[in-house]
């Protein structure tokens, strides 16, 4: 009995529990049938998708033979780096199935989405020979459905299943309302054997909006386990080293980083980055490949340092190496890391500093307290108990910056800056410079005449270091610290 028959009996209407049941049925059906694919292609497929055999088997079973009526909509989800796109594209490419693979990020208009799919199904690539033209022009879903049908007829694919893979499918939700429901019913609409596969990182429940959405078959790609990670990483083994040796290295890397980060790509990056360091004693002749303990002692502190910058790809591997050497020379890695992660003092023009300080004060002080801080004879009133209680509930440092009008910024600026400053165009242009530098942001209306509002977006530490350079005691002016 063909599995496609099951789908037909289910009438494209799979509820969640049926969904699970179905997967159970497919898995219980025993070893994967070959489905008419050549054995060497299958072998290659399994080799290229390590630790994902189960998922590949399941998908192959779902797809069936080329001319089988396939499951019309599949929803694949799983965290980043769990091999969703990799597995799907490998299946489609190795088995040479007719398909279109589209990343929805690229399709910022729905027209682009249609164009990409049609071009790929029709095997048209834009080149100078065809004046970079698309297969055909279509502006809406209706056109697309029609054109897709003709394309399939032109290529004589009526007998085969055409796969349309939409990567980063969560973007479809932000497009026109009809796109997601229409794609889920594409098989019905075109009357052809089309299988739409959605790839995403979020669960199906988040897609349920609007009407007309058909429930797809939901498949989950779980995160790789530690052993699976080990297996995949060991495939990177560089030439000239034995696999066991590299495995032992990867083991060490995982033991350090596994707690902090489980992302395959990131760990892979780190493993490649630090491998030369690991091999250093061997190259110098101080240790052999079997000397695991010695190598471990050599690399371990190095990796711990790298742990501090995990996820921060501020430097390439070459620069990282250089910095490591410098750090080793100076033995002051702490400061080095600091400069690396951005506590670098940024030099700003004199008035820009004061403008930024004024912006910070305006963002973090309530407007009613301005009188107290900036008026000469305001009298230093103490906070009352009630006020203190209220402030405790809502410390503005915790609440984040609040918007303020330009007038207030300028008033504070003029009361903190020393000397007479003419309100020249240069002063105002500095405000927009600060906005471009993202030290301040403009909020609300972009109508310049109607008193635009701003927010200061820098942190207290940064602000204090700026204030120190101009001998301004910012803490004394902050309401939270009074």
């Amino acid at each position, binding site marked *: 009995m063909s599995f496609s028959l099951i789908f037909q009996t289910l009438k494209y209407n799979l509820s969640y529990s049926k969904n699970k049941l179905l997967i159970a049925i497919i898995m219980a059906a025993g070893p994967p049938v070959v489905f008419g694919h050549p054995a060497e292609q299958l072998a290659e497929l399994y080799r290229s998708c390590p630790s994902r055999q189960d998922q590949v088997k399941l998908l192959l079973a779902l797809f069936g033979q080329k001319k089988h009526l396939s499951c019309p909509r599949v929803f694949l989800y799983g965290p980043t780096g769990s091999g969703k796109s990799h597995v799907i594209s490998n299946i489609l490419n190795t088995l040479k199935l007719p398909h279109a693979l589209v*990343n929805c*990020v*690229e399709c*910022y*208009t729905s027209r*682009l989405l249609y*164009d*990409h799919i049609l*071009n790929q199904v029709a095997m048209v*690539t*834009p*080149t*100078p020979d065809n*004046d*970079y033209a*698309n297969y055909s022009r279509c502006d809406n879903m209706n056109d697309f459905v029609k054109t897709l049908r003709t394309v399939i007829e032109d290529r004589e694919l009526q007998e085969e299943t055409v796969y349309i893979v939409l990567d*980063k499918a969560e973007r479809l939700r932000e497009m026109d309302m009809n796109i997601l429901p229409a794609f889920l019913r594409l098989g019905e609409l075109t009357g052809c054997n089309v299988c739409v596969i959605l790839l995403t990182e979020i669960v199906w429940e988040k897609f349920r909006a609007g009407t007309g959405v058909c429930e797809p078959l939901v498949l989950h790609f779980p995160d790789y386990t530690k052993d699976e990670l080990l297996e995949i990483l060991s495939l*990177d083994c560089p030439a000239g080293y034995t696999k066991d040796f590299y495995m032992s290295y990867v083991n060490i890397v995982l033991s350090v980083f596994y707690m902090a980060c489980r*992302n395959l*790509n*990131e760990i*892979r*990056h780190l493993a490649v980055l630090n491998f030369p360091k690991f091999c250093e004693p061997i190259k110098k002749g101080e240790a052999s490949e079997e000397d695991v303990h010695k190598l471990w002692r050599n690399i371990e502190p190095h990796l711990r340092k790298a742990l501090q910058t995990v*996820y*921060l*790809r*501020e*430097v*390439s*591997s*070459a*620069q990282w190496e250089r910095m490591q050497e410098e750090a080793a020379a100076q033995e002051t890695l702490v400061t080095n890391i600091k400069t690396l*992660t*951005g506590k*670098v003092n*940024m*030099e*700003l*023009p*004199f*008035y*820009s500093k004061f403008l930024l300080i004024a912006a910070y004060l305006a963002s973090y002080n309530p407007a009613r307290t301005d009188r107290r801080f900036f008026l000469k004879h305001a009298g230093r009133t103490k906070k009352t108990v009630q006020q203190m209680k209220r402030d405790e509930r809502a410390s503005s440092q915790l609440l984040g910056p609040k918007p303020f009008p330009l007038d207030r910024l300028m008033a504070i600026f003029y009361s903190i800056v020393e000397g007479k400053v*003419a*309100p*020249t*165009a*240069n*002063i105002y*242009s*500095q405000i927009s*410079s600060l906005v*471009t*530098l*993202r*030290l301040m942001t403009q909020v609300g209306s972009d*109508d*310049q*005449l*109607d*008193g635009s509002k701003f927010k200061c977006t820098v942190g207290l530490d940064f602000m204090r270091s700026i204030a120190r350079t101009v001998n301004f005691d910012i803490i004394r002016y902050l309401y939270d610290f009074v």
Partner: protein
Amino acid sequence: MSTSGSVSKACFVFKPKAGKRKKKLNPADYFVNETGAKTEATRERYDTYQILWEDMNKDIDALQTDIHKKVFDDLVGYVGTTHPGFSLEEGTKQKVSSNEIPTAALVTGVNMPDHGMIFSNLTSLLQDNITPYVARLQAKDCSAMKNIMSKVIMQFMGNKDLLDDDDDEVQVKRISPTMPVLCGWYADAVKRSQSPNKSPSKKRKSSYGQYPPLVIVMEDLEGFPAQVLQDFIIICSQYLSRLPLVLVFGIATTVTAVHTLLPHSVSSLLCMEKFQAQPSTEYLSQVINKTLLTTKYPFKLGHRVFQLLLDMFLYHDFSVVNFIRGLQFAMIEHFFSDLGMLCCGAKLSASRVKAMDHRQLEAIRKSPSFRRHVELQKPQEQRDLLLNDKHTKEVFISLLKGLDSYHGMCYPIMHCLHALTSSLPRHPLGKQLRELYSLVLESNVWETQGYKDAFSLLRLMARDDLVSVLRQCVERLQAWTESDVSEVIMEVQTYKAQLASLGDGSQEEQEEPDETPKERLSKTTKLHDLQNRLRESAKQKKKLTKYEVLRNKILDYLDEIFRTHLPSPTTLPLHEVYYYDRVSTLRRHMNAAPRAAIQTALSNPHFYLQDESLKTEDGTIPNTAPDVCIAYKLHLECGRLINLYDWLQAFVMLVHSGDENGTDSSKQKKVDEVLQARFIRAVSELQFLGFIKPTKRKTDHVARLTWGGC
């Protein structure tokens, strides 16, 4: 839209101006004499300016490429090595292990006006060495995905058109801007550059590799919308196997800006390398050295102008481009006047002085420094200088020569003084050479407190330090080949040798003076005596060691040198010929104060309109003033909210105040429609200028946006 919220509801039509084609203005047209006619003299002045500025600009340009040379070379080298194994052919295609886009993060500093120049230099450098395909993106063009993609693709593919022919410019626009299109184009471009029968531009292409990378330069990364940037990077990484893309981020603040813009899932697609550009202060010092602290160019800035340009640099924008623009403006202003005529090389100025007519001579005679000079002369000489043109010309020539030789000595000696004092604690004469130069321009430097402090510190200096600063002095002086400072060098070197030969002898000498008081102390026993003796010994000058004597000698010599060679140029006669010091003009042009200008125009229309009838005593408003001025003055008398009807009444009253009083009472009831229209127009103008805005708090009221004035 601001207009839709206008106080007056109306239809606004903005017609495009008919004469869109702008007439190209030639600066030479502005060089005229008092009568407005172009003469030989004005033409000459313009030519002198032109030549001088071109020379100076050439030097600045050379400096510009020079200053970033190292970081650019690094960057270009990096871009060249980013895609070593890239290939488009199926057979040799190796699996790209990661989908990381090679990225160069160029930290440029916050001097934004200069960035355009930095990036155009970088672009041309990349195009000369690595790849013809460079696209430059600015945040203002990239507000959405569509814009960024079409910008990139237009620039890459437009490049091809430039190489072949220009006629498919229109065609490019029809092509939908997608990455597959770019892939197709790139494959084609590579194929075409490889085919041997392509003759044009082959020579240029041969210097590139087989697969020149596609470089995308994002000039102001901070300004890009985060979502657009993220999507763009994701898309780029998708096509890395088919397109050798390289990104260059121009970052003005710090590298952390990347992390604030991009989440980890995107930033892990980048393989970044950081490049730090030279800070602009460094660049500014070099520009000042090359253009002002040199005898090559006769044109100089006076103290106040120099200080203004420096202040604008340090306080406002860190922009060297703006500094240079200010310099150019000062120069062109200088050549506007008659004095500018003589601001050229010594030989030329002599011949020009000879060719001067009486009127021009008179203009120069009026210059304050020359008058001061005349007053110091004997009566006979004074008469000659003022009346005898021939004699005056000779004196002019000799005075100008004197100024030239002053410049010749002044700069090396100033470098010497800077070397001497720059390392002193708390920098009494400034840390940078430009600060010292500003002091020298202002007044005689030895009269300043800083100079005195510096010398009193120098008189306490230890021997090793003194030797090292003297060595620096000599090095700085030797770098000057243009002027004759060998005498000074010789002198300083002899002193240095003397210091060295002093040897260890000084150590023994030093102990001697210590002993004498001790001896005396031991002899005396009485307290009273002891006090007396101590008092005496305090009065007595401490005996100096050999080293101290020598140190004083050296410093006295240097002091003498500075006093002879570093007088302020303002004390020299005819310095106006070389020094431009009209600071108010420059300030008005370079550091504009729009708000002050608007307020002046509104409260004192006479200032701009130059109409005698508008001149009034303070406080009163003539009814002849423009409507907007009247409305402005009236609104100053109001509080936070202004009742429009009251305002209108006051307005009508004022406008009619000039007429006979009799008609007033009858008109009180109903306001003339024309007057009402005029009033509404004035109010709209005030709204446009940002003085008032409509408010919903009270009907028929507008809110004031400024305060004070009552």
